[in-house]
């Protein structure tokens, strides 16, 4: 199989790239050549691959190679991180309007992408979340499309609005909104006919619907198996209609799904859901990390990297425990533990590793302000290396400069320094916690 030979090839290339220290331009170029092939094999658009590898190259040259990885693997690690951040987005759910206000959502895409099924799935999901969705059959072209939505809607216990196939989709949408208002539906989900992105008339129809009923969110439904053409499709729908989110379907297949990356790169809109099967509850949130390793398809390398990361974390943890004992814990360590914490999935999952906290986790979690942590991080990053390793030199003028650099009030800097001192004191009082035996299972410390 094509893909296996690629992985093999990759392994061979990596073997040649031995040595430690920093990634040289040569290392990065050699490894990226293979990464490029892997991405192409996964159907990531050629131009996207080119752009992507270029930006990774800039980031990777000169980066430190982690202990236990060779330069090639280090590049893959960086590639994976970049893929995850490229495909992720802050918006994870549709911000629906509150209460009885109606949110209008329109699904659009090529023929056979899976819109009708997805409309029914999304309706079911929203219903489960306490919404009252109305499904709208606005595909008046494909044979039996209306019936398909009706049957699926019925299975989900959802109301399907239809006016037959003799009325224009724009008028159906208008009628649906009227019906929704009269009958207290608060989400309207419009199923549109599949269409080619080069069919100007049909693309105009989408814009017309959008305008006629003030569609809040237009979601592009894309088949995960799409090839190089995905960028043209995504671009056309973005330019001609405008889209607010993406749903990738048929991910229960074995496609590598590079189209997801292409589309995110082209549209910049969040990928919200993944279709995972033909059953009507097979709609899941989209996980950029899963998608990244699927596209990269380098299972072996990825699991090695994870192992190395875990052991490096352990090394770091032991190192830090020593520091705690010697009491030379400084802001650099503080920063490291914050980063580790993020990697572990945030504060919540770390609290779960702490024995004896029991049901109190939720309360503590509620007390922690994530944006506060972010500010703390930027304060530390605004310190000079000397200040970080020796906090005692922090005088007023230094603190002022730091506050400016981090864009916070000086009182916040003061608070952090004080907190830091306190936690140092606390460490001293709890040698048991830091010994790692009876203490925290994972050996993680909290930076506060």
């Amino acid at each position: 199989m094509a893909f296996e030979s690629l992985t093999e090839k990759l392994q061979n290339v990596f073997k040649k790239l031995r040595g430690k220290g920093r990634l040289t331009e040569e290392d990065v170029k050699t490894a990226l050549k293979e990464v490029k092939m892997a991405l192409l094999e996964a159907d990531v658009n050629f131009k996207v691959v080119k752009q992507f590898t270029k930006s990774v190259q800039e980031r990777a040259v000169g980066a430190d190679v982690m202990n236990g990885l060779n330069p090639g693997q280090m590049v893959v690690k960086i590639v994976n991180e970049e893929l995850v951040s490229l495909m992720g987005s802050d918006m994870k759910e549709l911000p629906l309007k509150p209460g009885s206000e109606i949110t209008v959502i329109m699904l659009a895409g090529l023929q056979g992408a899976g819109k009708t099924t997805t409309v029914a799935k999304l309706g079911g999901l929203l219903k489960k979340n306490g919404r009252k969705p109305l499904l709208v059959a606005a595909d008046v072209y494909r044979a039996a499309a209306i019936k398909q939505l009706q049957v699926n809607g019925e299975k989900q216990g959802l109301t399907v609005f239809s006016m037959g196939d003799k009325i224009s989709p724009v008028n159906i949408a208008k009628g649906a909104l009227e019906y929704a208002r009269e009958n207290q539906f608060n989400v309207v989900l419009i199923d549109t006919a599949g269409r080619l992105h080069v069919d100007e008339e049909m693309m105009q129809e989408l814009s017309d619907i959008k305008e006629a009923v003030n569609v809040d969110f237009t979601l592009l439904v894309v088949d995960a198996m799409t090839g190089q053409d995905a960028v043209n499709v995504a671009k056309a729908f973005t330019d001609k209609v405008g889209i607010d989110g993406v749903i990738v379907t048929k991910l229960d297949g074995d496609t590598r799904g590079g189209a997801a990356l292409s589309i995110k790169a082209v549209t910049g809109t969040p990928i919200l859901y993944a279709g995972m099967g033909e059953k009507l509850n097979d709609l899941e949130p989209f996980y950029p990390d899963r998608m990244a390793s699927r596209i990269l398809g380098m299972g072996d390398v990825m699991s090695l990297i994870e192992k190395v990361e875990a052991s490096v974390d352990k090394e770091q943890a032991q190192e830090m425990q020593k520091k705690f004992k010697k009491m030379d814990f400084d802001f650099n360590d503080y920063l490291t533990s914050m980063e580790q914490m993020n990697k572990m999935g945030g504060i919540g999952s770390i609290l779960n590793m702490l024995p004896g906290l029991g049901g109190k986790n939720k309360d503590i979690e509620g007390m922690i302000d994530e944006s506060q942590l972010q500010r703390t991080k930027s304060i530390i990053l605004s310190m000079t290396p000397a200040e970080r390793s020796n906090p005692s030199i922090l005088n007023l003028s230094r603190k002022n400069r730091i506050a400016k650099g981090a864009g916070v009030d000086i009182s916040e800097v003061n608070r952090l320094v004080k907190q830091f001192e306190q936690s140092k004191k606390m460490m001293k009082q709890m040698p048991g916690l830091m010994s790692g035996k009876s203490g925290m299972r994972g050996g993680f410390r909290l930076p506060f």
Partner: protein
Amino acid sequence: MAEKKKGLFSRLVSGLSKTRDNIVAGFDSLFLGYDVIDDDFYEELEEILVMADIGINATTAILDDLKEKVSEQHIRRPQECRQLLINSIKEQMAVGEADYEFENGRSVVLVIGVNGVGKTTSIGKLASLLKDDGKRVILAAADTFRAAAVEQLSQWADRAGVDIICGQEGADPASVVYDAVAAAKARKADILICDTAGRLHNKKNLMSELNKIYRILEKEYQDAILETLVVVDGTTGQNALVQAREFSEAAKINGIILTKLDGTAKGGIAVAIQSELGIPVKYIGVGEKIDDLQRFDADSFVNALFEVPEESSDREEI
């Protein structure tokens, strides 16, 4: 013949337009921008083929073949190299009269493929095409799974003016096929075409259900030619190769219907499938209307892919 060819070609050209312009622009600049055939030249060529969804493996095979010929024939000019490339893909994709034998005898056509590729629509179109050739056609609605699938095929049967054998939604598709074979025999149909539910090739149980349908046709309809066509969406990337391979495990595949070539996708994956699995494309779908199905023509397809004007393609055959 020339008339027909032109129709298909211009249709393909208009269908495959926009993106292909980029590709072709890339292609032309490639051939014009190089004085010599060197590694850089091949590398850029590889990129262009990959972008047409041909895939890295098939691309490598094609390029290896090209390199061999270039050195054998002492070719120096990139332009000549281009013609060579076009010819070798044409040669590889060519279908012969024998590939359409089932159209003329008593036969049963089993249409399979993953979800949403255009199976039902293609069956409607194929039924119409064959009926226009004077054949007596019957359809079997063996997609008893997807909502309103039976109704969808019934509408196509009406449009094409052919008979249809239906089962209830949720019924065993194998029993529908069984009944349809009996009906085809009783009504002395020339061609029976069976629609099946879309299924992803990595679902074991659905693939064995398909195998069961295939075996029923083999066993119950022995005096008919069994023609299995897998429908591939022309927009699909490399996964179509896996699809073709996996479907071949459940049924012996005789050909491909390549759909949605009226968009901007180039359908290069068909070259990859032919190259790696030896399965020929027999029909192409170029739209949603009843006459938007055509017999595959390798010359037109490859010309359209590389946008060679029709005259020059005729000339080059001399």
